[in-house]
């Protein structure tokens, strides 16, 4: 019973996710592409929630749909790209490269799923995906990558300040 409801909810998120992701690529206007990306992030978060990974789902919305997309939109709106500029870029070559790359990934994923055979799902413990469980993993098993990432972000912030200060 729960499986069937889960399938419906999965489709409810997955189909719009694919449509929105296609919209990011197909949209002519960069703002429309960015908006499709926001929609895609939200539907992706829905799938995370379905996988009982609430923290990841809402981190994703907060960081990507909230902060990063706002910066994207800012940049797009301030740059005011025109169609002429878009055609000057080597769009054709990029499109072909994208098609080849995407179909390659699709083939690998399809083959992997085919070879995995029948998957026996394991029930996750009650604490799975909670803030506590993720925090425990982050500060024990993955402490080094965590600290390395924060150092990387610090370098990025200092770099941004240096670049901005030169112009002031």
């Amino acid at each position, binding site marked *: 019973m729960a499986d069937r409801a889960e399938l419906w909810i999965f489709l409810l998120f997955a189909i719009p996710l694919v449509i929105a992701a296609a919209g990011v690529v197909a949209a002519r206007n960069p703002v429309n592409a960015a908006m499709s990306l926001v929609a895609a992030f939200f539907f992706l978060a829905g799938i995370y929630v379905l996988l009982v990974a609430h923290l990841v789902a809402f*981190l994703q919305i907060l960081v990507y749909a*909230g902060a990063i997309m706002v910066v994207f939109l800012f940049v797009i709106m301030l740059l005011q790209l025109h169609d002429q500029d878009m055609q000057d870029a080597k769009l054709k070559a990029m499109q072909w490269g994208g098609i080849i790359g995407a179909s390659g990934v699709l083939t690998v994923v399809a083959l992997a799923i085919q070879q995995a055979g029948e998957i026996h799902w394991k029930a996750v413990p009650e604490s799975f995906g909670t803030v506590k469980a993720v925090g425990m993993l982050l500060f024990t098993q993955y402490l080094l990558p965590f600290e390395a990432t924060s150092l990387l972000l610090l370098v990025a912030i200092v770099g941004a300040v240096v670049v901005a200060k030169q112009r002031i």
Partner: protein
Amino acid sequence: MAPYQPKSDPKWLVALTLAVALTVPFLFPVLILLSMPLAEPSGGGVTLALRWLGNVLGTDLSGPVAHDVGTAVVLLLIAFLFINFGAIFSGICVWWERRIAGRMQSRIGPNRQGLGGFLVWVADAVKFLLKEDLVPAEADSLLFRIAPYFVLTGFALTFVVLPFGHSVVMADLNVGVFYITSVTALVVVGILISGWSSNSKWALFGGMRSAAQVVSYEIPAGLAVFVPVLMAGSLSMQDIIRAQGAAPWDWFIFRNPAALVAFFVLFTSQLAEANRTPFDLPEAESELVAGYLSEYSGFRFALFFMSEFGNIWVMSALATTLFFGGWQVPGMPAAAISALKGTGAWWGWQLVSMAVFAVKTLLLANVVIWLRWTLPRIRIDQMMTLSWKYLVPIGFVCLIFTLFWQLGVGAAPGLELASGVALSVGALFVVIAFFRRVFKNVTDVRGDAIDLSNW
């Protein structure tokens, strides 16, 4: 000259209007309370309802598909009730704010439609619905049309975790507070898009200002939220309330000096995130026409305003949950509550807890409205300075102080009680001083009579 004589003294009409204004929006949480058993995932409420419906219709509705559809219908019904609560609350809030504004500016305010002008919000809503829905010729029509729904969704999604009472909460998510901060991000996207797609410089400026403002103030707000989260050891809204007590000295705001500061940081940041005065730069009438709203009319304009006024409830309810003890009632510890379960008094307790929560939230909402009519709008550079140079560092200091404070409380548990009693007595003196001042101002103006004839 003869002393001023009020023409009439409609005490009862005023009391009646206020009673209606207070009751109508809260009918919806009561309806949600009544439909809560249906929404229990394992309670079998849906099964029972389907069996009853099957008997009435004379068909068998016990199949799994009927159960799924029934659950979906119940969830849609509850979502409908929540959105209607938001709409009705913001409508009545508009009326209340206009009346307060009138009083504060020594004028009358809307007092024609219905008792005390109470029906003015219905009139406004009907007017918005009947107006033409204009889309500027040069606007990006799809994004222009869709933007208000982003704002509305960002506002409505918060009701999933906002508690209304002891059991009236849709989903007590493990990441509760964090969920609220993340879904409200959708509002910024909506505002930015509405500003850009209008293809008007005023709207674009408004949208840009709003995005800059919200992104900046999200940081101090997030830091301030983490102070009660640290004290409760949980992000879940209900757990945070359960970790507090009913008495003022058991509230988080007084149990830790840093929490008192964090409350003001959070409150200021939320005013800015909701674009309320003194942070209403994005829609500054005197500079930007109406900011990102300039080109909107009719129903879409109403959606923006509904979210903006509904946000007063959201921000006040969040502050009540995090700092003011939520729905906790004196003399009702957790054991007493669970003893009530299964008896008729259970429903009474639910109503009492909802009333306590609503009263606290409405008091805070009133402060938000007072601030709007008291403070002037600040400049954009002052707005940025306030966030980055004052609120963010203060937020960090509060966070680190709380870490040490929690260590201290672990060593000496009396610390929280001492701080709670000291700070709540201080707060009591502030409240008494406030009421003495108000009383003095009233008596200075007109002896002891309050003129209600123009109400």
